């Protein structure tokens, strides 16, 4: 059984996959992690996926609009955004408003990918004009620019701050201007193992699956 999952799920799903095979010794889950949009395109071109887990509703809609799903998409986790800064927050950033400082090197995702759309929404809600130095192709690229020390701050998912460990710190974005990204999951139309695919989705939604997701910073649906 092959699971196509958004890049931001890499660590959490790898662990879930391991726990899943412990529970179901006959099952074998292999993963392909990439940008959700790329995965939808690959599935459309006939890539052998049984399960598709997206980092946003938009790409899941692209899949269902093309009729490439065989089960109703189900939201299994949510993720909020956070400001990622260097370890110890050397620039003393306290919130979104501070990012307007032109002397800071701020990087965000490109508007073409979900995290870039969310960042723009947050800046708009906060009424802050930010001049980013780069619009990165995915959220991991934003995170690595901050952890490498090349950028002073970036807008990433909470889970990316958790994943960075002590190489970065997070600054909270208040709920009233934050965005809650929904992660939907579905069985694909061409699933070679639809039964196993559904079993995997059920496992993701189980208490055990949800606990693993929470440990990586994901929020309940």
């Amino acid at each position, binding site marked *: 059984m092959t699971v196509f999952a958004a890049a931001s799920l890499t660590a959490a799903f790898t662990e879930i996959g391991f726990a899943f095979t412990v529970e179901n010794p006959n099952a074998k889950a292999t993963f392909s992690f990439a*940008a959700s*949009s790329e995965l939808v395109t690959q599935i459309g071109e006939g890539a052998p996926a049984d399960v598709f887990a997206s980092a946003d509703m938009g790409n899941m809609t692209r899949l269902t609009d093309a009729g490439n799903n065989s089960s109703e998409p189900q939201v299994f986790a949510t993720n909020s955004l956070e400001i990622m800064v260097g370890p110890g927050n050397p620039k003393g950033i306290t919130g979104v408003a501070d990012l307007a400082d032109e002397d800071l090197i701020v990087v965000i995702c*490109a508007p073409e990918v979900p995290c870039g759309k969310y960042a723009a929404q947050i800046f708009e809600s906060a009424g802050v004009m930010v001049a*980013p*130095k*780069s*619009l990165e192709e995915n959220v991991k690229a934003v995170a690595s620019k901050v952890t*490498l*020390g*090349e950028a002073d701050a970036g807008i990433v998912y909470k889970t990316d701050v958790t994943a960075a460990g002590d190489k970065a710190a997070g600054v909270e974005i208040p709920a009233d201007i934050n965005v809650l990204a929904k992660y939907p999951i579905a069985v694909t139309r061409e699933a070679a193992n639809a039964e196993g695919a559904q079993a995997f989705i059920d496992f993701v939604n189980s208490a055990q699956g949800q606990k693993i997701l929470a440990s990586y910073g994901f929020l309940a649906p």
Partner: protein
Amino acid sequence: MSRSRRRGRRVTLPAPVLALAVVAVLFFALPLVGLLWRAPWSDAWAYLTEEHALTALRLSLICSLWATLLSVVFGVPLAWFLARVEFPGRSVVRALCTLSMVLPPVVGGVALFFALGRRGLMGQYLDRWFDFRLPFTTAGVVVAQTFVAMPFLVITVEAALRQLDQRVEDASRTLGASRWYTFRRVTLPAIRPALVAGAVLAWARALGEFGATITFAGNFPGTTQTMPLAVYLALETNPEQAIVLALLLIAISFAVLVGLRDRWFGRSDRSSTTVLA
């Protein structure tokens, strides 16, 4: 003149060789045909004239030409050095200088951070002493492109220098010409086809550069978003536009490669110094 002679001389290849060659041609042609087949021709013009596409194209052309210029300025002396100077560890130096050809470009981009980034080995001093930073700047794009493109020029020119009959250079020296004069008036003209071929290869590589650029220089319209980056991001939301932009990039490179080849390599078709021809 050489054209008509070439056309007149018919060479018959053994059938298996011909068959394999045809497969190779198809291998390169089919993906291009695929792009042409999927291209949204009715909207093509609108996509191409969108401002951000033109901005990316302009930046691509400027940066790739700068990268080519830098590759020639530094690459020719490097090739000359590698071809002419015997020293222990020469093969190690050569491997080092062509390593970026085999390095995954994204890794190249990260390595450039470690060297020239704000926290890099050298970059930290550029930042501290001159308040100068390469990442997220157009200069950073040129550096990333030069890093991956220069080896193509170096190996092409070095091969030509090695095949050059050194007695010609010796003769020039014996007749009283200085080293510099000999290099300029004897060596350089002799390797000119290889130099042009190497420069074109380097330029083409720089024009298509993606991984090192997006990693090291980031992606910002007008500053660091070159055409390949624009194509990649367009794939996320608008695959049709991505195809059109990619085709434009292909058309430009194709025109240059075909045009230059006829103009510069026609004469030296049978010369062993030309790598591209």
